[in-house]
């Protein structure tokens, strides 16, 4: 009798166990499929760009795309040499970084090395507001306030500047990137163990010497990673340059002239009526492919450096 009940209850238990097991597995597979969405997205981006870009390279020469200096879509016998566009992107990125790097890194140094805790907790969110401002707003600021200002200043000293100067969009882009660099650098600097600072100070170094000789070298991989992230952000930034930089592919290094960037040309090619078999439209995908590959490489390098820093100091919250 007892055995029978035991057997029965065991059977009930087992069948219940089985349904639970089934349910558990089902939910687990559901979760896995959710997780694959992000992978699919990456591949979706890669393949959608790649296929359209290949269509483009069937029509136009790949070599000329990378080395040519004439970019004239939409005309008969159109030419797609992207060098002026790459140069424009490069110049604007350099201007942005020369604003963002010193200000970002030194702000981070002040926040992590000098500021009291209360100052730091107040200032950091303020800087993060800069990061939260939509880029279209920065674009308007660059086009309406900064660019005319640059033109006026240049006129007053007798130089001619374009209303779509690379300088205006570069500077505003730099302001946008400051918080990206300062925030990550601040985290990295704060993660450098205090014993290093104390040791240096005990040897008689001044505060500044401690920072320069001990803290910064230790934090260097992290700071490099922050800078690379900033560069990748600058390369992919769209709205500021669409609104404040020029459309004309202009092969020059004069930052007061108008220049165009990869992202501007992508937007220009895809806004409005588009025929998907014309090289003018497809060129957007070829440019997108270049952008994708470069930012991907930069990101991989950045991850490498930050991992180096993490394993050195065994911090996990970066």
């Amino acid at each position: 009798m007892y055995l029978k009940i035991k057997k029965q209850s065991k059977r009930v238990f087992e069948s219940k166990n089985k349904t639970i097991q089934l349910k558990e597995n089902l939910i687990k597979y559901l979760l896995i499929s959710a997780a694959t969405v992000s992978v699919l997205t990456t591949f979706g981006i890669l393949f959608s760009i790649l296929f359209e870009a290949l269509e483009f390279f069937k029509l136009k020469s790949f070599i000329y795309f990378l080395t040519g200096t004439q970019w004239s879509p939409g005309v008969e016998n159109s030419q797609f040499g992207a060098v002026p566009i790459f140069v424009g992107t490069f110049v604007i990125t350099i201007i942005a970084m020369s604003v963002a790097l010193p200000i970002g890194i030194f702000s981070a140094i002040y926040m992590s090395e000098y500021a009291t805790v209360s100052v730091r907790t107040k200032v950091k969110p303020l800087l993060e507001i800069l990061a939260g401002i939509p880029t279209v707003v920065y674009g308007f600021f660059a086009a309406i306030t900064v660019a005319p200002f640059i033109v006026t200043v240049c006129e007053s000293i007798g130089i001619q500047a374009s209303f779509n100067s690379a300088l205006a969009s570069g500077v505003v882009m730099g302001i946008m990137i400051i918080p990206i660099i300062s925030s990550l650098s601040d985290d990295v600097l704060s993660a450098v163990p205090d014993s290093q600072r104390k040791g240096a100070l005990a040897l008689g170094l001044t505060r500044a010497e401690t920072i320069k000789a001990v803290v910064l070298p230790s934090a260097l991989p992290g700071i490099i990673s922050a800078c690379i992230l900033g560069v990748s952000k600058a390369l992919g930034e769209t709205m500021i340059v669409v609104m404040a930089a020029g459309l004309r592919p202009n092969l020059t290094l004069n930052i007061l002239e108008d220049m165009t960037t990869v992202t501007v040309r992508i937007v220009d090619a895809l806004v409005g009526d588009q025929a998907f078999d014309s090289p003018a439209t497809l060129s957007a995908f070829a440019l997108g492919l270049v952008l994708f590959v470069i930012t991907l490489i930069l990101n991989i390098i950045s991850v490498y450096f930050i991992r180096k820093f993490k394993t050195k100091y065994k911090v996990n919250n970066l």
Partner: protein
Amino acid sequence: MKKTNNPFYDASLKKRHQAARRFKIFALSSLITAISFLVFFLFDMIGKGLPALQQTYVQVEVTYNDQTIKSSRKAIDKKLRKIVSRAWLRGIKKEVQNNPQLMNTTKLVWALADDQVDQYIKGHHYKLKNKDRLIVDELNRLNQVELQFNSIFFNNGDSKIPEFAGIKSALIGSILTLLVTMLVSFPIGVMTAIYLEEFADDNKFTQMIEVNINNLAAIPSILFGLLGLAIFINLFGLPRSSPLVGGLTLALMTLPIIIVTTRAALRGVPDTIRQAGYGLGLTKIQVVRDHVLPLAFPGIMTGSIIGLAQAMGETAPLIIVGMIAFIPDSPSSITQAATVMPAQIFTWAGMPERAYIEKTAMGILVLLSVLISLNTIAVYLRKKFETKW
């Protein structure tokens, strides 16, 4: 000469201290520069946008009769026609239709002024003929010009006539788009995070997903637009310019933010909770569903709101999928053509009329205040439900 007796005296010490001071001042001034950028920027936007809160109205005599209904321009004095807004004049016909008693009467009303008159009254750059300007001056002297609160801006959709343009259709477009975004990215993001944090073994597949999420966060937003264009519009045939396509595109962009913050929130729940659950014989799903998730929920909400705020300010991918169409009426479904607030700002910024500058700046102020309130809610939630284990 006391110092020279000190065996530790270092002649370069003074210089080194000076250098240290300089270094500190340099660092401080960098920080101040960064913050003054922010302050200058905000003041600039407020200064440019606040005038748009008011709009000029002029008092004119309107005659309602058969002739004026046929051609509403004739309802007012000939010389005032350039001063009153064209869009307002068009409304006269509707006014009579709604209120037939007005027929064959003459009334003194406050009429919306033309954008050039508005700019002139506000003291901005204007393009008025001298003749018209004198009329405005005369009206002004008779106290027949007034600045009133600009309710049009909040009640109207976009318009090619500057004084008649408003942000409402863009606001509704933004809400619809973000609704789609959240409905897609919230469940997928949270489920991905639960899988990675609670279920996944440390194998190649998991590592691949993690690397992927990191990469996804660093991909320039415009490339998501290319994805939306190539896959959602060209491959799936979803309607261009619709909140559905825009929302899906933004959802993929928001995914990494939600995954990362949800993982952090799940990691914040101590293992003892899980152990206690297992000890009572709960299955893994039961532990996660009934104990870990509720405890992590405030953190998940905070992260989602931050992701939402970021999606709200995104423009580039939406331009690529066509959400910069001219939309005078508010969209009512997710498959209709729509525009969003940042895209509206972009369109206005490119308009040649001076009056659009203040509209743009006002639109920016509206967008920024929505973003700031979203972020404040996120911070408040985090503070309120923060648990120290």
